[in-house]
């Protein structure tokens, strides 16, 4: 009897020893999981401001409604489904199906505004909960379906990750570091606030202050949208820069999207065309070619050449756009009327090596390094690998690919007295000034060359293809250049074109440099006259409209004569 009792007692003790000793760690963890909770304390994402400290992005609180079907009694299912359907507008039958599944958790609707969440809370439905989440809210754009500077700013997805644009590029800085709190919960799953806690405060994200001007951005988006529609174009982009600092003032794409509703947007629209797409700049490149040749002493603005309208290079015959013999012309006329033969002759006078060095000096052989995510580049081949014909076509902007940031920064060298101002969008991160702004700028060409090129670009507006960009009061004080280049498809040039206009104003003391690029315009009547698709009819009027807005907003006055 005693032995049997001892055996039974031994069995009980051994079983106890098993649970209390061998399984101690596992059971302790399970117990902790029931009453202890580790809650992440999200860091507040940094705001984004424009140069006038207008807030471009605001953090808002939204709610996701969820149900725990296993906590909803059968008798309450109809009431819960009816309540959810009436407040959230969801399908009642679907909710009933979910409730019948007896699963632990299911979202009913994500990202509700507070008003709806309050309505739902007031119903006190059993098994229905609300989960707080933070959402970025962007300012409205030109139309109800767009937000301001969507392609520049990008958006933040539901997991808090920045996608595209600045939100992606500055994810680490904006997001900050989340903290956590480890606390106890009672039987009803309520937090025991005065219990033992381990607490780590979150480090909030830093704010960004941009060089962008929200008003100019809006004006640019509006003018661009109107222009693209008028030109029956596929798309268009505008980039405006502060000539002295390289700070981007406006960055507009059309078509654009609504960053507040990114989950219902065609992902093709997310791609930014300013930095994310390369194009052949066309005759805008002549500014770079002629500046380099003048800087090297190979030509002068008044150097006279013979332009028969066609030239043979490397076995190819290259024509002027009008295919006419222009006789003896100077380089100011070459730029004003955008003659290809003149640009090729300038490049030849300068020499291939000097021309390539010039491309490097203007920043066209490497990415611009702009602080926006997704910059695309198609760098030219090495100098020794370029053929004669490639040099020739590159001199007037065909056969060479750039993005808009590269091209505008290159032209801005002329506006900035020969110095290359590194393009950037962010002026300050938190309280720290962008180090780019504190670095000395690289002298790409001499100030004298820049002044000469400015005079030549003024002639483009006064006597050449830039006439449609003239702004009242600034006619003698405006510098610009048009560009039109055919779009290649499968190695063959098509009739579709990129058209562009770049310019700065006032010419002597520029307040802004602006580049407008339109893709595949089909200007009314262009079927009969293809030149109607050129930059002077498509990109220039857009440039003019935006420039007028800047003149008014920034109180720009013409230079005294």
């Amino acid at each position, binding site marked *: 009897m005693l032995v049997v009792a001892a055996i039974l007692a031994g069995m009980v003790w051994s079983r106890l020893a098993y649970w209390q000793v061998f399984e101690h760690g596992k059971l302790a963890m399970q117990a902790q999981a029931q009453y202890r909770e580790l809650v992440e304390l999200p860091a507040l994402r940094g705001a984004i401001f424009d140069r006038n400290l*207008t807030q471009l992005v605001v953090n808002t609180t939204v709610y996701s409604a969820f149900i725990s079907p296993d906590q909803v009694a059968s008798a309450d299912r109809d009431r819960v489904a009816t309540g959810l359907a009436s407040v959230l507008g969801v399908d009642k039958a679907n909710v009933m199906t979910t409730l019948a599944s007896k699963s632990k958790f299911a979202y009913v609707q994500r990202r509700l505004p507070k008003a709806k969440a309050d309505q739902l809370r007031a119903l006190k439905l059993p098994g229905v909960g609300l989960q707080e989440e933070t959402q970025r809210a962007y300012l409205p754009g030109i139309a109800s379906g767009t937000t301001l500077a969507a392609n520049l700013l990008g958006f933040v997805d539901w997991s808090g990750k920045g996608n595209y644009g600045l939100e992606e590029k500055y994810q680490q800085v904006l997001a900050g570091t989340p903290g956590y709190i480890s606390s106890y919960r009672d039987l009803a799953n309520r937090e025991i*606030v005065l219990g033992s806690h381990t607490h780590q405060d979150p480090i909030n994200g830093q704010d960004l202050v941009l060089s962008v001007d929200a008003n100019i*951005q809006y004006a640019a988006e509006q003018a661009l949208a109107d222009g693209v529609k008028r030109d029956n174009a596929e798309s268009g982009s505008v980039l405006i820069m502060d000539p002295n600092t390289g700070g981007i003032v406006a960055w507009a794409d059309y078509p654009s999207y609504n960053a507040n509703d990114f989950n219902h947007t065609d992902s093709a629209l997310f791609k930014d065309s300013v930095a994310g797409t390369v194009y052949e700049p066309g005759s805008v490149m002549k500014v770079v070619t002629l500046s380099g040749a003048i800087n090297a002493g190979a030509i002068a603005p008044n150097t006279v050449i013979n332009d028969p309208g066609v030239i043979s290079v490397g076995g190819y015959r290259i024509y002027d756009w009008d295919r006419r013999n222009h006789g003896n012309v100077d380089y100011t006329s070459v730029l004003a009327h955008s003659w290809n033969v003149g640009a090729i002759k300038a490049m030849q006078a300068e020499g291939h090596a000097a021309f390539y060095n010039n491309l490097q000096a203007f920043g066209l052989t490497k990415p611009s390094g702009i602080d926006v995510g997704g910059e695309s580049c198609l760098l030219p081949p090495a100098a020794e690998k370029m053929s004669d014909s490639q040099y020739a076509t590159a001199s007037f902007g065909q056969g060479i690919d750039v993005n808009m940031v590269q091209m505008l920064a290159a032209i801005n060298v002329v506006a900035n007295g020969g110095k290359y101002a590194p393009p950037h969008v962010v002026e300050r991160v938190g309280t720290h000034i962008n180090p780019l702004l504190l670095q000395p700028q690289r002298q790409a060409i001499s100030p004298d060359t820049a002044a000469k090129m400015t005079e030549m670009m003024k002639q483009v507006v006064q006597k050449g293809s830039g006439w449609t960009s003239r702004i009242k*009061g600034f006619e003698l004080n405006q510098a610009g250049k048009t560009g039109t280049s055919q779009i290649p498809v499968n190695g063959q040039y098509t009739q579709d074109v990129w058209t562009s206009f770049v310019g700065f104003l006032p010419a002597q003391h520029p307040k802004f440099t602006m580049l407008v690029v339109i893709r595949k315009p089909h200007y009314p009547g262009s079927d009969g006259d293809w030149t109607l698709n050129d930059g002077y009819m498509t990109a220039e009027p857009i440039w003019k409209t935006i420039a007028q807005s800047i003149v008014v907003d920034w109180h720009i006055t013409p230079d005294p004569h």
Partner: protein
Amino acid sequence: MARRRLGTAGATPHVTAQPRRRRRTRGFVQVASTVAAERLRLNMFGHAYVGVGALVIAILFYLALAAQITQSSYDISRLQDQQRQLIAEQDQLRYQEVTLHAPAQVQQQAAQSGMQRLVPSNFVVGPPVAIDLTAPLGGSPADTTPLWMRAVATVVNAVGGTRDVMAATKH
């Protein structure tokens, strides 16, 4: 020296205090328990009852305190929830405020008010500047005002205070 004299003048002679004899004092509890034991003359059961009673009081006190703490923690939890709601409302109001100042909203309101943006059709040419900023710097021109006028001006200026007018007079 003076300070020392001033410091010592009129001071009372320093008297060294005699060390007090420290009396051994008994604590209140000790005294009270002694007195209580003497008066009540409790037996062993009495001591046990008192002990248990004290223990029960301590437990009740602890329970009351714990209940109070729990209640406070729930209050804090409720207030935290309220705070979260207020922050959410604040966020919403901030977005409304920012949106009201957004260019799109401003333009819409301006259009509703019948305003439209006009492109300047002309620039007003300013009058020629009276001061020649390019003129070389030098001494002031000699005062060619007649002596009698200066004498009159001295009197008039002293009364009327028109010195600025005189200073602005073109020589």
